[in-house]
């Protein structure tokens, strides 16, 4: 599945097995997008939260 980057317009490839909550990174501008819904025909994404100081494992 393909989608255009909302920031730079580059083509994003959404892997078939991707899940809601996964992050897709634009190969051109590096913007991270979070998948918020997905079905056979379409995928919706929003800009992901940026890494915060308390992120980790």
């Amino acid at each position, binding site marked *: 599945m393909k989608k255009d980057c909302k920031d730079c317009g580059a083509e994003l490839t959404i892997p078939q097995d991707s*899940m*809601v*909550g*996964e992050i897709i990174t634009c190969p051109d501008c590096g913007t991270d997008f979070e998948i918020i819904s997905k079905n056979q025909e379409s995928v919706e994404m929003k800009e*992901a939260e940026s890494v915060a100081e*308390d*992120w*980790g*494992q």
Partner: protein
Amino acid sequence: MIRICIIYDKIRFEEKKIYNKIKEKGFDATLVDGKSLIFDTESSKHDPVFGDIILQRVISYYRGLHLTYCLEQTGLSVVNSYNVSEICGNKLITSMVLKKNNVPTPKTTFAFSTESARECMKNLGYPLVVKPIIGSWGRGIYQIKDQSMAEMLLETRQDNDNSFSRIYYFQELIDRPSRDIRCIVVGDEIVASVYRHSSENEWRTNVAMGGRTEEAPLTSQLQEIVLKASKAIGSGILGVDLMEDRERGYLVHEVNNTVEFRGASAVCKSDIAGAMTDYLVRRSTK
């Protein structure tokens, strides 16, 4: 059927792996975005979305900690618990808890202002290691090699308005091989142990910093120390990190609460996600 709820704020390799494993084993798995949850003082445990047991995999320490508190207050079982999460997420508390429970750990000193940090570094001498008390993936961890670097650190920290930037965590620099050990503990079982070799021109061993993993032998001594560390923290699903001091042997320097295991799963034969699933089933309230 036992229902397992995974709370996340970003789906990584690990969340996907565990989710698929739960389903593969025939249990019900639900993924819930922690960012979408709302709680109030009247919240009850009857929301079926949370199932019989919750695996907390939120990547933001504070979001995860507070969500866990809310969930536990409604009577739900969360892995890891609030108490375990709080200890693991704060390096100062981790170090104190390890030492109090006689788990070998590097000597660590804490200071709570610019002036006391300056005095502290002068007394400890160089080189030494500074770490942020909150945070992960090796970020903000530096070797302070001399007085001028110490002053740079203090200036940088002063310019940072993060509340934790004025709390200083200084650790002795350990004489060790260019690797550390990550053990993944599930309950009272060590399901994987790997070396994490630091990459070229990098002393930190974090996989996020380019570290390379290799399966490590689980010696009886390593096993004993890791299980002791896990028990001291409160047990659950944990990543125990150790260094190999050339004189003192194993030293536990960190315990991770939402352990990442992509690197370990690539080199270990054990079924890490499967062991986690089995543990969650055992801990479920059903």
